[in-house]
């Protein structure tokens, strides 16, 4: 009678890792924090929260609510008085004395120079090509919207323009985390592919990549960044992701190349060769899962590193564009604010970044330990 011999199923690497992680309390707390941030990122990206972060709702440099409103200083933030179209500068007559003559000229479309007409020594000898149009608009009496009332304090304070720091931090987290993750993916991808090719194929391919690697790492980071920034000429977050990704692959390359060199000669690869697997299949279907834990750890390390690099990029002037906020842009703005006594933007962005980066790093450490088959 056929029957199945009972045998113990030995758990795979990932299951083991997960078990170890679960037992580590610090790791779990860190994971929870990271997940919380990611949830915030999703909410922010979909516009559920912090969508109107750019609106100026507070007075300039509104203090955090728990501090109470600031005393009015010189140049205190009062929204500009609405100007109606009928406002005229008081001193000089603004009506073009030649307006009548202009009406006749206006059909020609071009502004004709007028020599000094006799008598009138004041302004407006020359022609205002839009005099008639402006007169028409004035006569319609179009008015500007009255300014809204600005809050004297905000939960985490306001920035120079009166924008809510709390909303900026949330939106900034979204930008910074996405930049960190995306550039980490690019750098890891490049490093892995290059490393795999170099380590697996060896010989002249390896020589080429090694040469490329040493050339690349010899150039000062600053110069490299400026070069990529100028070449890309794109706007926005994509540029930063590419800058960081295209300059950061070197560490992963070395590591993955080493791994592939190690695995290349192993039995299971020879076995794959025996069953006729192609090179690329062997590289990515057989060997890769065995190095994937290294890749994963690299990914998390890079995420942290690039989030921090984005801050430096902002300082150098290659940060996010004007309609985007990130931790880097907030810290950059906050440079001069501390000495003015406005510490809240620095504190908010710095704290948010510290919390996320710490949690992420601790989790990465735990992940690395959990994935290491040597540790008991």
């Amino acid at each position, binding site marked *: 009678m056929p029957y199945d011999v009972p045998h113990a199923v030995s758990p795979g690497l990932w299951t083991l890792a997960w078990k170890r992680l679960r037992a580590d309390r610090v790791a779990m707390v860190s994971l929870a924090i990271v997940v919380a941030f990611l949830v915030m990122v999703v909410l922010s990206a979909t516009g559920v929260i912090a969508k109107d972060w750019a609106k100026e709702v507070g007075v300039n440099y509104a203090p955090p609510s728990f501090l109470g409103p600031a005393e009015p200083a010189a*140049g205190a933030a009062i929204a500009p008085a609405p100007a109606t179209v009928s406002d005229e500068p008081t001193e*000089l007559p603004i009506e073009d004395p030649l307006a009548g003559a202009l009406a006749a000229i206006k059909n020609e479309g071009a502004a004709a*120079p007028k020599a000094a007409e006799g008598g009138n020594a004041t302004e407006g000898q020359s022609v205002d090509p839009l005099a008639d149009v402006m007169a028409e608009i004035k006569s319609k009496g179009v008015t500007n919207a009255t300014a809204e009332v600005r809050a004297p304090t905000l939960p985490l304070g306001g920035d120079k*323009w009166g924008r809510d720091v709390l909303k900026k931090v949330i939106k900034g987290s979204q930008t910074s985390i996405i930049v960190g993750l995306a550039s980490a993916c690019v750098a890891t991808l490049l490093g892995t592919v290059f490393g795999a090719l170099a380590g697996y194929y060896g010989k002249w391919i390896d020589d080429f990549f090694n040469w490329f690697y040493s050339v690349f790492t010899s150039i000062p980071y600053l110069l490299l960044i400026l070069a990529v920034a100028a070449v890309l000429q794109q706007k926005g977050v994509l540029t930063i992701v590419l800058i960081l990704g295209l300059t950061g692959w070197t560490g992963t390359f070395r590591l993955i190349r080493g791994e592939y060199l190690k695995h290349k000669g192993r039995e299971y690869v020879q076995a794959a060769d025996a069953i006729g697997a192609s090179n690329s299949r062997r590289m990515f279907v057989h060997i890769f899962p065995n190095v994937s834990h290294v890749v994963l750890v690299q990914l998390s390390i890079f995420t942290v590193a690039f989030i921090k690099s984005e801050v430096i990029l902002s300082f150098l002037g290659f940060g996010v564009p004007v309609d985007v906020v990130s931790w880097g842009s907030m810290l950059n703005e906050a440079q001069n604010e501390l000495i003015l006594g406005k510490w809240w933007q620095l504190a908010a962005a710095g704290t948010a970044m510290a919390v996320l980066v710490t949690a992420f790093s601790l989790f990465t450490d735990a992940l690395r330990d959990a994935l290491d088959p040597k540790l008991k």
Partner: protein
Amino acid sequence: MGQGADASKVIRHVFPASETGFDPAGSQDYYSGTIEQVIFETLLTYDYLARPAKLVPLVAETMPEVSDNGQTYTVRIKKGIYFTPDPAFKGAKRELVAADFIYSLKRLIDPKLRSPWAWLVEGKILGLDELAEAAKESGKFNYDAKIPGLEAPDRYTLRIRLKQTDYNLAYVLAHEPTSAVAREVIERYADEGGRAMSNPVGTGPYLLKEWVRASKIVLEANPGFRGFVWDFQPGSDVEDRRIVAAMKGKKMPQVGRIEISIIEEDQARLLAFEQGELDIMNMEAPLAPMVLDGDKLKPAFVRRGVKLSRFIDPEITYTYWNMQDPVVGGMAKEKIALRRAMAMAFSVEEDIRIVRSGQAIEAQYPIPAGVVGYDPNYRTRVKFDPAAANALLDRFGYKTGADGFRTLPDGKPLVIKYTSRPDTLGRQQDELWAKAFALIGIRMEVQKLRFPDQIKAEKECKIMMRTASWIADYPDADNFMQLLYSKNIHQNNSACATIPEYDRLYEQSVRMPSSAERDRLYHEMARIIEAYAPWRLDISRYRNMLTQPWVLGYKKHPILQSEWQYIDVEPAPKGG
């Protein structure tokens, strides 16, 4: 030490950016120029206290004689002025002579030097441009050639003959690129480009003692300087009398040593001043609220005795649109409407209040305060009026498209590209204009370019829109009104504007001395700028100079870059 200069009296000054070198014809940045002003001397200078700025003789005996309808200038140089000793003089005492000024002026146009100041003399002096042309052919400038435009009838007399009337030459003769240099020194120390950037040998009150590039510059009083007695007349300012009382009759220079640090970061500079590590500092706008309440010093600083010297810098900051650009440029009515709408959407008040911390005023007129030709009564017609801006755009067919942004009248998408620097100020300017564009529903893109790249693109008329500044080289309106003259395109006509009516008026104004008639022309030209909107005038900034209580007799001059030879220091121990 020269005449009364006391080696124990030290002034510690600061530059926010580094210098390049000390050759009057060779360096172009403000800070190098500041050092050159006290090492070298020009024919004329400005009276220390007189406001508005008034030209007075420096090495000249008297003001130049102007004849031939403003085409000939004759100047006599004081006798007995000597250059500081240098091996190039082979042990002899070297006196300053008229030929030294001829040499300096020739250097400005020498093609080998590629001097950034060539425009001061280009096209003006008889025979000089031809000499430059000859130099381009032969590869070597003939400094010995005699030309009708620069003559020294005797050892101490200089005669300059111009191609046409120029009322502003006197200002040029007060500008430090025209300082006298000794030919022997230049020839001995010149590099491949003909510049002697590291061995300044002049006739001025100070000489270069120590130099750690981009970090520290130390000047010491020139022992051979002829000195002068402090004797300026007070103006209408109340502070002037105090200065006169403190300084009158003293033998100058009093300060024996000047130590200049280069500190790039705002915070570091301010903290250094507060610690007493600096004696004079330019308080820039971002941190001004630390020190100023509006236009006055905070009480804590007043109690410490810190003094403030504050006035509006003779400069304008303005935003320009490229008149040659297909999207925003040209004289077609709908383009004029587009520019004027953008101008009306911009809030100068917010710029001043938020970005400049209140340390600026609105520029109503293209000629700023402190410049001859300034009109304090002129009011611009350009106002912050987003409603009118929107109405104007609607009227000319800039319809709102499906994406919520306006399109061109023919339906094509409309994107305005604003160029700015990748620094804090650039970012704030981006934010200001982003708000303006949001008010009128136009899509804006920001192009970040470093300053050298900006200049390059601007001179090729490739920048669509940018906010630029211009500070007076000399205090005459012409220096500002020339910025829109069509012949200056590819040079300093940043808007690449050709407005025939403006050109016509400008050419008339150049032939006039400062007068009510010239002012009338300028008023019309200002109205043209408002009507055609190649520019939107923005602000003129305040200059706030802080000095420690032990610095005596200080009053910041609007044109002179430093006042070290006119001030004194209390010998008492300093704080910090």
